[in-house]
Structure formats: structure tokens, C-alpha cells
């Protein structure tokens, strides 16, 4: 395998990992109150290492809405243009809890598996 292929496989893994986590991150961001797209982006960016492209979040929100995990509403703002706010539905809350539990289990078993690598710097 070429060095470049290895690098791109590694990148792909990272992209998939982040993308997989993004859905949970969005549901979690909406846990306490409704937010619009840019607010969700800023919240996730400031709270975590999930550096997401801004283009990724909107199609994902549309999909979450189509499945019924979030609902949306246009609200006029002081700045002069309307904003589309998203809020969790009951199904979305259920899904968020389910994913969070899955994440806990997954990360603790990964933690055990990765124990031998701890403390070794690249």
C-alpha cells in the first residue's frame, strides 16, 4: 500500500468518526433549549474538538427532521432576517439518551482496549 493511501484511509476514519459523533452532538446541543443552525455550530465548536464544516450541519439537521428527531420553526429576529430554530421531539430525546448510553459503553470498552497505549507519545 502506498504511503498516500494509508494517509487517506486514516483521514477517512477520522472523518467518519467525527461525522458519526456529530448526530449525537447536535441532539445533545438541543437538549436544554431550541437553537438555530449557527448557534448549534458555535456551541459544538466551542465545547468540543469536533471541528465541523458548516456545510455538514444543515443537511444533517434536515435528515434529523425527516426522521422526526427534531422539529423546526421560523422565528423573526432583531437582526432583520428570520432564523430557523430546531427543537428536540420526544423521539429525539429518546434517541439522544439511547445514543449517549451507547457512547458511554463504547468509550469505556475502548478505554480498556487502549490501556496499553496510554502514556506513549507519538
Amino acid at each position, binding site marked *: 500500500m502506498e504511503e498516500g493511501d494509508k494517509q487517506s484511509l486514516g483521514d477517512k476514519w477520522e472523518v467518519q468518526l467525527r461525522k458519526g459523533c456529530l448526530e449525537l452532538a447536535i441532539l445533545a446541543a438541543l437538549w436544554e433549549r431550541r437553537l*438555530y*443552525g*449557527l448557534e448549534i455550530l458555535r456551541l459544538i465548536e466551542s465545547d468540543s474538538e469536533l471541528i465541523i*464544516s458548516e*456545510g*455538514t450541519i444543515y*443537511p444533517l439537521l434536515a435528515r434529523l427532521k425527516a426522521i422526526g428527531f427534531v422539529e423546526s420553526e421560523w422565528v423573526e429576529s432583531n437582526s432583520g432576517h428570520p*432564523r430557523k430554530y430546531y427543537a428536540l421531539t420526544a423521539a429525539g430525546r429518546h434517541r439522544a439518551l439511547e445514543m449517549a448510553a451507547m457512547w458511554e459503553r463504547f468509550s469505556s470498552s475502548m478505554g480498556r482496549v487502549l490501556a496499553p497505549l496510554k502514556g506513549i507519545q507519538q
Partner: protein
Amino acid sequence: MSMQQQRIEEYLRQVRSRLRGLREEEVVEIIAELRSHIVERATPAGDSTVDGVSAALGALGDPEDLAREYVKDEVLARVETSRSPLRLLDSLFGWATVSAAGFLVLMVTLSGYLLGAVFVLVALLKPFHPATAGLWVLRDSAADLELSVRLGFGTAPSSGHELFGWWIVPLGLLVGCGLIVLMTRLALWCVSIYRRARPLRGRL
């Protein structure tokens, strides 16, 4: 319209032109949301600046990549949430217009549904046309076996014999409905496989 507004509208026009397969009201909603995002992102302190607009558009990424994410996600989500065969077919048509895989799944599903419908029809027509409706085995001139499902019209084929007799009524209903259920599941399964396997585009 200022230069900056023109740039924003041009970007949105490019996204819009690639949002094929979606319903008009979805397209309007998507464009409105993106416009709202760009305007707010580009104008932290009131007027949109050249740098602000460039940064906002750059962060959203290539209009084609963005449109593709929407089309795939929305169309696939619609397929996945369809449960009745008619709604499934309707959403598969949407998927087929944007992807070769979608077209293939649509064709296979459509063929399966048609065959299923024929079985159900034969079963339903049997009581009215007992002599002709049924599953017939026909022998052609080359003496090869040919299987033919006949509907209850015209005359009985001269060189064949019917299979199952009156059993075609429960069998036809069972096989027909079974095929329709099976094809529905197959299509949904294909969508979920496709969604997981498709290469991820765009940067995160």
C-alpha cells in the same frame, strides 16, 4: 443589490440548481435557511463585508458538495421512512433521479411489485374465469418448457396445462403479497446499506 449580496445569491443559485429530486417547498426552505446562515455569519457587526461573505461561503464549502449532501440525505431519508409500497415507490423515483444505485433499486422493486400484483390478480380472477386464469406451463415449438402466468382473458392455451388448479387462489394471494412485502424490505435494506457504505464527501 450590492456586490456582496450578488455573490451570496449566485452561491445560492448554484446550490438550488443542484437540488434535484427534492420537493419545491423543501428547496425553498433549504435556500432560505442557507441565506439566513450566510447573512448572519457574514455580518457580525451590521454590514456584510467582502471578507465576511468570503469566509461564510468558504466555510459552507463547494455548492455542489453541499447540494449533494442534501439530496442524498433527504431523498434517502424519505425512502427509509416510507412504509407503504406506494409511498416507497414515490420516494424511490426521487432517489432514482439523482443516483444510478437508486435507479437500479427502483427497477428491481418495480419489477417485483408488478410480478406480485400479477399473482394477486390471477388469484382474484380465478373464481370468475376458472378455465383460463391460473399458472400455466406452456410447451413451445422447440419443446423447451416455458412458464407463463395467464390472466383470465381470451381462451385457454392449447398446448399447455395448468398448475395448482384452485390452489392458485390461496397460493397467488400468498406469493403475491409475499413478493410485495419482500420487495419493500429489500428496497429499504438496500437504502440502509447504501447509506452506510457511500463515500463521505466534504470535509468535517
